[in-house]
């Protein structure tokens, strides 16, 4: 039986009830303005500004120590910012303690209460709000149904698998119908397959309940697969925010290009700058690049190109940029070959070849590679 389908079927009913039972569409727009947090001399985050629309799935992505948790915990109210403002639907909430912000939270490691059963854990947010007993029972049952844990209601957290604990934590965060849910690396403790399943479930759940999700991860694949928008942090600063497609296709900086997937970087000097394109010289090689009215002759530029955008060319095929190269190494990945080739003046280039037309590649083999001028992007270095 197909697991995901079974989940979808069960998700269908209760979630709709959850949504219709709630008040008219709960607004959950968060804006973070010039947020700074310092610990003594150490700066955890500096001047971070984010606008998160109601119902969005926004991911904070960045390497370890980049300040993701600090941003999330500032929004949650556990970290008091050194400077900057946090607003919920336009209202400043800096002064509110965490328990008055009414956000659902899923912590890294889940933080399920070990002395309470799954049902009691899920009931916790309702009990502290003094909801009537019958309402609590009802909501808990619906929340558990939503994450398919009805059968485990009376178990203690330690009697659950990692994935089940994760779902229990999710049910607990959603049960009181918050307008915003904050999740700090909720899947990082799980093995890869389970992660995959739960990513899909989580995304599905998000689109059904229509709440604002602010999600922290350092896994770029996860961020790309799940988010409406991704905010990339590096060393406490927001580097770029945008849809996964924008960030992947049009990275603003070398850091973003390198962090989100693999990338080649070519540095050169601008020549023949025109209104909508220019050429740049790397050693003796002249390459063309579209875009960039801001480029002037003599400027130095860095251009980035994704491995899968580089083609292997036959005699007959054309491309704006055509380069002779020699295979330095290759590996087979089922769907494609991953090649490392050396190009004179330009250096080492990596590319993915989806199919290999003739015989298998061999080390030392000469091939022609190429790409069009709009396949690569200029980045700030």
């Amino acid at each position: 039986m197909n697991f995901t389908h079974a989940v979808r079927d069960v998700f269908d009913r209760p979630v709709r009830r959850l949504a219709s039972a709630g008040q008219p569409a709960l607004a959950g727009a968060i804006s973070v303005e010039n947020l700074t947090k310092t610990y003594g001399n150490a700066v955890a985050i500096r001047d971070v500004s984010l606008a998160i629309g109601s119902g969005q799935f926004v991911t904070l992505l960045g390497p370890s120590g980049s300040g993701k948790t600090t941003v999330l915990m500032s929004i949650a109210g556990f970290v008091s910012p050194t400077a900057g403002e946090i607003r919920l639907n336009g209202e400043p909430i800096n002064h509110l303690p965490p328990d008055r912000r009414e956000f659902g939270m899923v912590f890294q490691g889940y933080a399920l209460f070990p002395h309470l059963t799954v049902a009691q854990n899920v009931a916790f947010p309702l009990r502290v709000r003094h909801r009537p007993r019958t309402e609590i029972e009802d909501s808990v049952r619906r929340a558990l149904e939503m994450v398919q844990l009805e059968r485990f209601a009376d178990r203690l957290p330690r009697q659950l698998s990692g994935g089940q604990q994760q779902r229990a934590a999710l049910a607990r965060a959603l049960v009181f119908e918050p307008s915003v849910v904050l999740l700090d690396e909720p899947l990082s403790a799980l093995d890869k397959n389970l992660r995959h399943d739960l990513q899909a479930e989580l995304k599905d759940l998000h689109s059904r309940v229509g709440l604002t999700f602010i999600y922290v991860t350092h896994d770029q694949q996860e961020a790309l697969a799940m988010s409406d928008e991704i905010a990339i942090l590096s060393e406490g600063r927001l580097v770029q925010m945008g849809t996964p497609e924008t960030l992947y296709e049009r990275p603003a900086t070398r850091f973003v290009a390198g962090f989100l997937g693999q990338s080649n970087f070519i540095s050169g000097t601008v020549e023949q700058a025109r209104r909508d394109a220019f050429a740049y010289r790397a050693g003796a090689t002249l390459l063309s690049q579209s875009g960039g009215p801001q480029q002037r002759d003599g400027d130095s530029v860095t251009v980035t190109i994704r491995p899968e955008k580089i083609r292997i060319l036959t005699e007959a095929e054309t491309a704006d940029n055509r380069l002779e190269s020699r295979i330095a190494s290759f590996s087979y990945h089922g769907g494609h070959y991953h090649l490392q080739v050396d190009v004179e003046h330009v250096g080492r280039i990596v590319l993915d070849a989806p199919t290999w037309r003739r015989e298998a590649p061999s080390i030392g083999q000469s091939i022609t590679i190429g790409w069009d001028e709009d396949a690569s992007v200029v980045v700030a270095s």
Partner: protein
Amino acid sequence: MSALQDAASPGYLDRAPSQLRRRRFQLGDNAAFYVLIAPATVLLLTFYLYPLLQVFWISFTEPKPGFGNYALLLSPSVTRVALTTLRICVITTVITVVLAYLVAYCWVHAGPRAQRVMLLGIILPLWVSALVRAFAWITLLRRDGLINSALAGAGLIDAPLPLLWNEFGVVVGLVHYMLPYGILPLAASLRSIDGSLMLAARGLGATRGQTFSMVYLPLSIPGIVASAILVFIFSLGFYITPALLGGGRSMMITEYISIQIIEVLRWGLGTTLAVTLVMIIALLLAVVSRVLDLRKLFGAK
């Protein structure tokens, strides 16, 4: 056992390649193993188990063989002492655990430097003899002691308060003595509570008070139980402090035993009471260890 032998044997370090050689080594090691633990075993048997067995023996044979001594356990004088002991121990335990909880809580949540200072404050009293501490309390609590003369000097009381030679004095001395034993297991337990659970509670809408009563307190129950057991058992068998601060009036079981043996020479009754006390404590530990993992409670790994 075999792991212990392995670890103790030199063969464990330079694993002999041939089975035969290893076997021969082990035989020799076994002997060495028993020789090594023999002194401690002999010591325990002669100075601990043997006297205990003798006490047990006397309780059934003095002044004449049989259960006569044990029948005396229900006599009014013994039951009165037993009830006094029980009352004092329960009161001491409750007060000690409450105070210990406050101290342990502050200790565990203090900064690293403050923690070091507090640790010193907590274990320092352990190095001062119970005798010295009892006399210190006498100086403070007696009719013309520091407290009474201070209160009288301030005009707050006309007659000195009866602070000593009664249950109050005993409880004060006992609580003071027991506090470190109450604090240490509690602190160990509080320290093991995962701090992110409290954040989670706040994040899910619980106030500070709710977080404490619904999450922190329930999670510290094992520590409270450990601390209470330890304090209760220690105070059941404690002698010096109650004897000195009680002044013979609110007599506890240990003092009663000592009087039977040293003063009125009813060895039979004295040993019977001692055996009963040991039994009760053993029973208490047995019952509790069925419910809780004692080794873990007291910090063993």
